[in-house]
């Protein structure tokens, strides 16, 4: 029975990983930017949510409505300035720039907010749960995060397939130069994609802050890695692959933890390596994605 529970808990946590991963996947898919600051940005979002809640005393859930738009705007501005400047010098430069951003963010947080860990207080909701049978307990928060992840992915899917900006994002992802000579400002479209990616990472960061303790270093130590693994397992270019990748990663971790708590992260890593070895384009990814 504990195995069934591990799988169910893995599925639930997988929603959170998918939320982390979809922004990373989008930025790589559209502008070839591997955002190494992705995890740190999630942590910043959690800190900003803490600040917003402390200052305005709004209920924790409302923090989303304030922080996510701020991060979307930040994403657009950062893409149009720093990241575009890096892209103009070559895709590899973006790795250095986002790595530098990651270091600056992490150390800035350590400097000004200390290494103490925090959590976004959502009262009793964090521990409320319901039971199925005698062995399986499902926390409302975990379920809510999974549902939110599915809604976000559905929304993203609709946006990309059926709206004007979504169509332009796909066109620019296919061929930025051909998009330019078709009259599309690819820089603006890159900005929109970055805004979406930053919005989702803020969402994921705040959800994580409610779900768990966070500190300045967890972004690059864990969150970036998990997001990266979920993207690779699921396959680039597929939103539902990303959800599947997040869920598989979650299941692997929970099963690993079932053996020994210390094996939790290791089990996820092993699945990641296995997928890389056997199916490098991921479960749902297109083969030409490199």
């Amino acid at each position, binding site marked *: 029975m504990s195995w069934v529970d591990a799988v169910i808990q893995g599925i639930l946590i997988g929603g959170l990983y998918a939320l982390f991963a979809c922004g990373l996947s989008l930025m790589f898919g559209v502008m070839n930017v591997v955002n190494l600051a992705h995890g740190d940005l999630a942590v910043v979002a959690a800190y900003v949510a803490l600040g917003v809640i402390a200052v305005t005393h709004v209920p924790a859930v409302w923090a989303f409505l304030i922080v996510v738009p701020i991060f979307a705007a930040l994403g657009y501005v950062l893409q149009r300035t720093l990241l575009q400047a890096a892209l103009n010098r070559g895709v590899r430069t973006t790795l250095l720039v986002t790595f530098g951003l990651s270091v600056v963010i992490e150390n800035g947080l350590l400097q000004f907010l200390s290494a103490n860990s925090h959590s976004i207080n959502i009262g009793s909701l964090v521990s409320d749960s319901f039971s199925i049978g005698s062995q399986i307990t499902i926390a409302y928060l975990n379920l809510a995060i999974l549902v939110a992840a599915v809604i976000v992915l559905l929304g993203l899917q609709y946006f990309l397939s059926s709206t004007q900006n979504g169509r332009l994002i*796909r*066109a620019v*992802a296919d*061929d930025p130069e*051909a998009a*330019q*000579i*078709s009259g*599309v400002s690819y820089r603006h479209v890159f900005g929109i994609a970055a805004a979406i990616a930053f919005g989702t990472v803020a969402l994921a960061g705040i959800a994580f802050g409610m779900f768990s303790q966070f500190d300045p270093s967890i972004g690059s130590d864990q969150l970036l890695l998990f997001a990266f693994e979920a993207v690779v397992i699921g396959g680039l270019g597929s939103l539902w692959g990303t959800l599947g990748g997040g869920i598989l990663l979650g299941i692997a971790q929970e099963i690993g933890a079932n053996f020994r708590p210390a094996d939790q992260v290791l089990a996820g890593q092993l699945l990641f390596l296995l997928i890389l070895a056997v199916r490098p384009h991921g479960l749902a990814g297109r083969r030409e994605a490199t």
Partner: protein
Amino acid sequence: MTALLEVRDLSVHHGQLQALHEVSLAVPAGAVHAMIGANGAGKSTLLRTIAGLHRPTSGSILLDGTGVTALRPEQRVAAGVVMVPEGRRLFPSLTVEENLVVGTTSARQGPWTIQSVYDLFDWMRDRRGQHAAQLSGGEQQAVALGRALVANPRVLLLDELSLGLAPVVVRRIYALLPRLLESGVTVLVVEQDVSQALAVASRLHCLLEGRIVLAGQPAELTPAQIEIAYFGQTARGRNGNGRSGINGESGPPVSAAIQPADGTGQQEAPGGGA
């Protein structure tokens, strides 16, 4: 000046290499100018620079007397300079119709709409939901042309339409040129297929190593002149004895296009097709 598109002393570098040497060119409204030349002569570079994809080292590009040299490619589309790129460059993960819709992003007002493109290529309406990657080369070229037309260009830049297409398909596409001209489009075409260029152009320019070495109306130019301009003086002897008429990819089909080429036979009417 009555030229709609004017290029003045345009020099372009690719890193250390100078691809264009002070090229000047004037295309009057309603004309079809063709640019021919061997591989690496700078034809595509010229067209891509006019479209805004390369930044010139010096020189300027004017549309209807207004400088567009500082504009980004998408801004030039809005001004009316639109290119059909070499190799079609459709968006493979978008459908035919979505490719056309993307083409309308910076569209000017004008006669061309997605519907009128469907009227021009009647098969396209039925297959508008297909992904562009599933089309044949000729069909993709038609969609690429349609994607440029829906922007309602004043100047249409056609880069190597014939590349990789069967001659019959190429002729069918070039046969549409009169209808494009009727709609008020001015055309600058880059073409390796000299016979095709001679057939459609009101004026021919030949690029050799980044310089325009020959320009004139097709009827005024002799095959020998074109041949020298195409290959350069030094290559003349090498090519002189081997009139194979092979329509190869690397060599120009000059000898095939202009059959009675004895060097003296002037004013040969250029044949319609190879």
